[in-house]
């Protein structure tokens, strides 16, 4: 495949944190030395290991073009997509690959995603229309300016790199977290949506916006420039406003949330 004989002299050492629940009591480092090319991604290196060196190595991947969000892992300590990270053959030191931080490891580089999926499901991830329309009445219209207010939040690919970057999620696994907040703001920021109050009920809680301390590293590692830190932190303002405005008549609140 990618390891043509002509490039076999260039080799790279890759250290993988392995965990096989049937035989390991705790994760252990295993080093692999493989041939590599200048344009090889970390994902291709893992695929080489699985195909030619050690078939028992487990990792998730699908699209190999940074859109499916499956191959997120810690590469030299930083949460990155394996498909988007290029191996630098010149590096003398070994590359260290570990599963995403802050998540339970199922096997090798595969982590548990079920809690994350539950969080995504909990934030009403769909448009709740203000006034339902029939197809005969036509589509819900939106101006480009209204779209610009939330467009970046639609780009999330659920790769969970932001969760691995978030120390507060590490301290409190029940924190709704940057990724789910990005999706929450994607709908709360949408001019066609009226589900604001339902989602704010989640924002107000101890595991909502107030678990965030504005570290901001989640936005730095985001491969799609979603800026989840912005989604969380603007909801601190929203949560505070809701706290003070709860004494005002209902009408003012729903208008502001729109």
């Amino acid at each position: 495949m990618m390891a043509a004989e002509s490039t076999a002299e260039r080799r790279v050492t890759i250290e993988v944190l392995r965990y096989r629940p049937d035989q390991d009591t705790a994760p252990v480092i295993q080093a692999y030395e493989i041939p590599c090319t200048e344009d090889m991604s970390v994902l291709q290196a893992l695929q080489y290991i699985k195909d030619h060196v050690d078939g028992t190595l487990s990792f998730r991947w699908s699209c190999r073009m940074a859109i499916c969000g499956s191959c997120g892992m810690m590469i030299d300590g930083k949460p990155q997509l394996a498909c988007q990270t290029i191996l630098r053959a010149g590096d003398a030191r070994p590359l260290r690959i570990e599963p995403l931080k802050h998540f339970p490891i199922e096997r090798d580089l595969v982590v548990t995603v079920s809690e994350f999926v539950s969080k995504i499901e909990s934030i009403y991830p769909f448009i709740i229309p203000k006034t339902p329309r029939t197809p005969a009445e036509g589509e819900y219209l939106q101006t480009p300016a209204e779209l610009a207010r939330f467009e970046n939040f639609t780009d999330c690919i659920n790769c969970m790199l932001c969760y691995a970057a978030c120390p507060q999620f590490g301290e409190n696994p029940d924190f709704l977290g940057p990724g789910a907040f990005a999706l929450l703001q994607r709908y709360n920021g949408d001019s066609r949506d009226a589900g604001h109050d339902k989602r704010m009920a989640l924002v107000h809680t101890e595991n909502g916006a107030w678990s965030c301390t504005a570290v901001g590293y989640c936005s730095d590692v985001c491969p799609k420039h979603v800026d989840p830190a912005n989604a969380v932190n603007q909801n601190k303002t929203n949560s505070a406003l809701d706290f003070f405005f709860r004494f005002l008549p209902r009408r003012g609140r729903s208008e502001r949330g729109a």
Partner: protein
Amino acid sequence: MRRPYLRPIDSLWWAKPPYLAYTLREAAGIAIAAYALVLLAGVICLALDENAYSAWLRFLASRWSLALHAIFLIAMLFHVWTWFAIMPKTMPRLVIGGRYVEPRFITAAGIVIAALASFVLLAIALWVRP
């Protein structure tokens, strides 16, 4: 067989990169608070009597105080910089004329306004000086 393994988190995460930048940003706030206390002490001394106020002025002119204020100045500059760097993340996305305003423009605007305000304050202070 499922036996998920949760690795313990490093209790010193805040003291290491990449989180060290965040820790320093938050810690700069302590220096700002300390500076506010020095100013507050001045106001209290002024309210007490002339002796107390001149004692506070003598403290300000001391070598220790100058060193302390040099630290305060550095912390304040760092705080201003990092404050406006994080500001775009704490506000709703700014859309002007139908277009999204990039966060770096908001940061730059904040820093420019802070610098202008500081120069105006300094100019007034020099102008009213006896």
